[in-house]
């Protein structure tokens, strides 16, 4: 007999109510119940960082949370980063311009991780960026393009703020 609960989780602004097994991870909830497959599952034990999402604005590894723990919370996945269907977020644009991805498997986790990091530290050094993404594994790029993209995005985001001010 499985232990089940009904939960209500807001993902990228939309609220989803589902009855789930309590042992279901948040990552599997997002992918298999809500069918948002942008969040990738790599190692399922908190090492690779591919499943990183934002929970109430703070990054978390969605494979290390139960879906029931997200009940009543707000989640942002990679699908919710861009401002609309035609424009990219400045960080996404910087990834494209700086060859910050090749196969794309690590990209959702890199983007969510860097969005929080650039909020905490809007003007980072290269070393700080490397440390910030040290919990996200990429096997294609050798990280150089990702670091360049993060530094470029920091400049773009700062410019945006100045322009908006």
């Amino acid at each position: 007999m499985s232990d089940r609960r009904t939960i209500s989780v807001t993902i990228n602004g939309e609220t989803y109510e589902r009855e789930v097994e309590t042992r279901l991870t948040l990552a599997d909830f997002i992918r298999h119940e809500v069918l948002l497959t942008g969040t990738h599952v790599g190692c399922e034990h908190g090492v690779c960082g591919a499943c990183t999402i934002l929970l109430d604005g703070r990054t978390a590894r969605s494979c290390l949370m139960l879906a029931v723990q997200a009940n009543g919370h707000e989640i942002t996945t990679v699908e919710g980063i861009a401002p609309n269907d035609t424009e990219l977020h400045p960080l996404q644009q910087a990834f494209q311009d700086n060859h910050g991805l090749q196969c794309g498997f690590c990209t959702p986790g890199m983007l969510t991780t860097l969005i929080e990091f650039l909020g905490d530290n809007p003007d980072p050094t290269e070393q700080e960026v490397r440390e910030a993404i040290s919990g996200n594994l990429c096997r294609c790029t050798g990280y150089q393009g990702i670091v360049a993209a993060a530094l470029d995005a920091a400049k773009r985001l700062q410019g945006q703020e100045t322009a908006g001010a």
Partner: protein
Amino acid sequence: MKPPPFTYHDPRSIEDAVALLAEKDNAKLLAGGQSLMPMLNMRFVLPDDVIDLNLIDGLAGITEDGDTLVFGGMTRQRDIEYSDLVARRCPLMKEAILNVGHRQTRNRGTYGGSMSHLDPSAELPSVSMAQDAIVTVQKKGGTRDIAMADFPMGYMMPSFELDEMVTGIRVPLWPEGHGYAFEEFARRHGDFAITSSAVLLDVEPGGRISRASITVGGVGPAPLRVTAVEEGLTGETGSVELFTEIAEKCREIDAMEDVYAPAWYRQHLASVLTRRALGKAFSRAANGTEMTLR
């Protein structure tokens, strides 16, 4: 790589949580989940019941009580990292916490969870050992305090009972102007350290060391106070020669051996990291002098 079936509980009070702990004989407490969740996913643990502590109010927070900092068991590592109080009054913890996993895991991981898991390399138990922290545990019908010296019983085995949970940690503070340093070596940033060294020094005007606390992590089954080094420093005047000589005593520690590192390597790291940490701590002490030790 999926958690095994269990019954999930989300108590709203400590009393309800410990009542459940008393009643269920194969239960696990879920704090930040940064160790328990991987263990569930890999099925290293097969609990019948999981008791989630995340919905209990009042279990998190950092407050100052005279010369002690009081942490709730569910205080997140991120809140320690960004706490002005911790940075000001307990700078060793601030320096150490930056080595705990990654931003994503510090957002969830908790002080009490790290203490209960008690990995021999974990930074927060090492800092707690260095500061002579007192761990408060609660069970149905009572609470008690456990001094950090009595807290580890063995490898990943804290001394509290199966029906007890960590509700808070009291960290006695060192006087303003004390020297501190946390050094560790890990293969990759954010990994559990192979070895770490935490140093606290009280230095009198003129450079005489009146009190020393030296803790190495990752060497023994739990964080270890190196009393031979502490005794060798007390009453002496800090110098490059003294620190270089005294840190060698770390090579005499009975060290663990595993697939990651042989015992001699851990002893070597303990000695090098303690030497560096001593130099840094003495340089930072208000009455110390600047020195660089490699």
